[in-house]
């Protein structure tokens, strides 16, 4: 089992490296959209500080939505997905590895870029660690929940729009708690409660998403 996990992680990460152009897309989107806000709306630092948490979070959510469609598509098209479902190991393990790698190559880089962009939005320095913690946790649950939608729509030729519509309502709680965490610390309110909610949401998604994703993949692959 450990060997399978190792192999899957290694495969996913090498594939991610070889398809790196696909992965740069959401990152560029994140940087571009966030940097357009100060230019397009206001350069008033107080106003920017007020909305910085929300802007960063909305852009992070949209950026990771962009990358979700690719999570299973290539494996579906070349037939690897069938073999994963037939594997003697629980397919949930393989799926969880894929989700984890997806987070490593989208959520983590987004989080690492966020300090740079938060300067542009005049986010106070003391809020930065909390922003990064909330993004790190939140993007993981975006990958987890997004994988269910990606699995449901992988059999469709153009599933991108449907995926967004399907999965967006479930992602809204992540956005609410993520934004609230950042806003709370900016305003000097108690923020650990919001972060704890985000953590609980991620833990719940971690427990359920692999099973739901496998069930959705079976619907898509088995005709």
């Amino acid at each position, binding site marked *: 089992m450990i060997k399978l996990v190792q192999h899957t992680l290694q495969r996913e990460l090498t594939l991610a490296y070889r398809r790196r152009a696909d992965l740069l897309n959401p990152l560029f989107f994140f940087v571009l959209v966030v940097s357009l806000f100060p230019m397009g709306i206001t350069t008033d630092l107080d106003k920017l500080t007020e909305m910085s948490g929300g802007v960063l979070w909305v852009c992070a959510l949209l950026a990771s939505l962009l990358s979700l469609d690719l999570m299973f598509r290539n494996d579906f098209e070349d*037939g690897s997905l*069938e073999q994963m479902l037939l594997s003697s190991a629980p397919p949930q393990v393989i799926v969880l590895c894929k989700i984890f790698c997806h987070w490593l190559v989208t959520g983590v880089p987004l989080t690492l870029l966020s300090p740079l962009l938060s300067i542009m939005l005049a986010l106070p320095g003391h809020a930065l660690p909390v922003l990064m913690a909330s993004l790190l946790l939140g993007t993981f649950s975006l990958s987890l929940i997004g994988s269910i939608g990606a699995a449901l729509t992988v059999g469709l030729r153009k599933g991108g729009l449907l995926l967004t519509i399907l999965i967006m309502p479930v992602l809204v709680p992540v956005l609410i708690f993520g934004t609230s965490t950042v806003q709370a610390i900016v305003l000097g309110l108690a923020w650990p409660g919001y972060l704890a909610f985000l953590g609980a949401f991620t833990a719940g998604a971690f427990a359920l998403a692999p099973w739901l994703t496998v069930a959705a993949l079976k619907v898509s692959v088995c005709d």
Partner: protein
Amino acid sequence: MTKLAVANNLFCERDDRILFKDLSLNITQGEIVHIKGPNGAGKTTLLRRLIGLSWVVEGDLSWHESVSESGIRPDGHRFWYLAHRPAVTLMQTPLENLAFAVAMHQADVSEPSLWAALADVGLKGFEDVPAHSLSAGQQRRVALARLYLNLPQIKLWVLDEPFTALDVQAVSQLETTIESFAEQGGTVIMTSHHGLHHTSVRELHIGAAA
């Protein structure tokens, strides 16, 4: 000989057309079951039903305990399934593809055996070339390489059109491999438009009735 799989009253309907009905199937260990039929007759659907990848076929099916713990579908590590989409990831090299196929079967195969299997399918020298720069036939060979690993736990091959895109020599080599696998007690279920001539081949025609 052990009855590996018994299926009764299989029925498949697609787009208001009945592909097959009252189909019964007995698969004995050590035989090569060659499913024949015109295009669109439901050969692939039947194969996918047998290994538990399709839900559109109704009917009873049970597998012998030597290949299946649950009896419903064969255990993942006991068979190879070679599908239409051959599970060859184009961004990976043949060696990486084969190693991952083995890892999903949770089998222990040494690196030299992987190289040997690739050499057996005529991919010597192409082990580290990305699969997208190989020809269609060579890509099929990457998928076929797993059949040459001789894993003792593999009891069943389910092959969907294994001869597609192969050259004449590779076709006859694969025929020999399939036959020797059956002689060693393995069971093969395959679809193909190509005729196989061996004593243990049993042909099954489906979809003749319109």
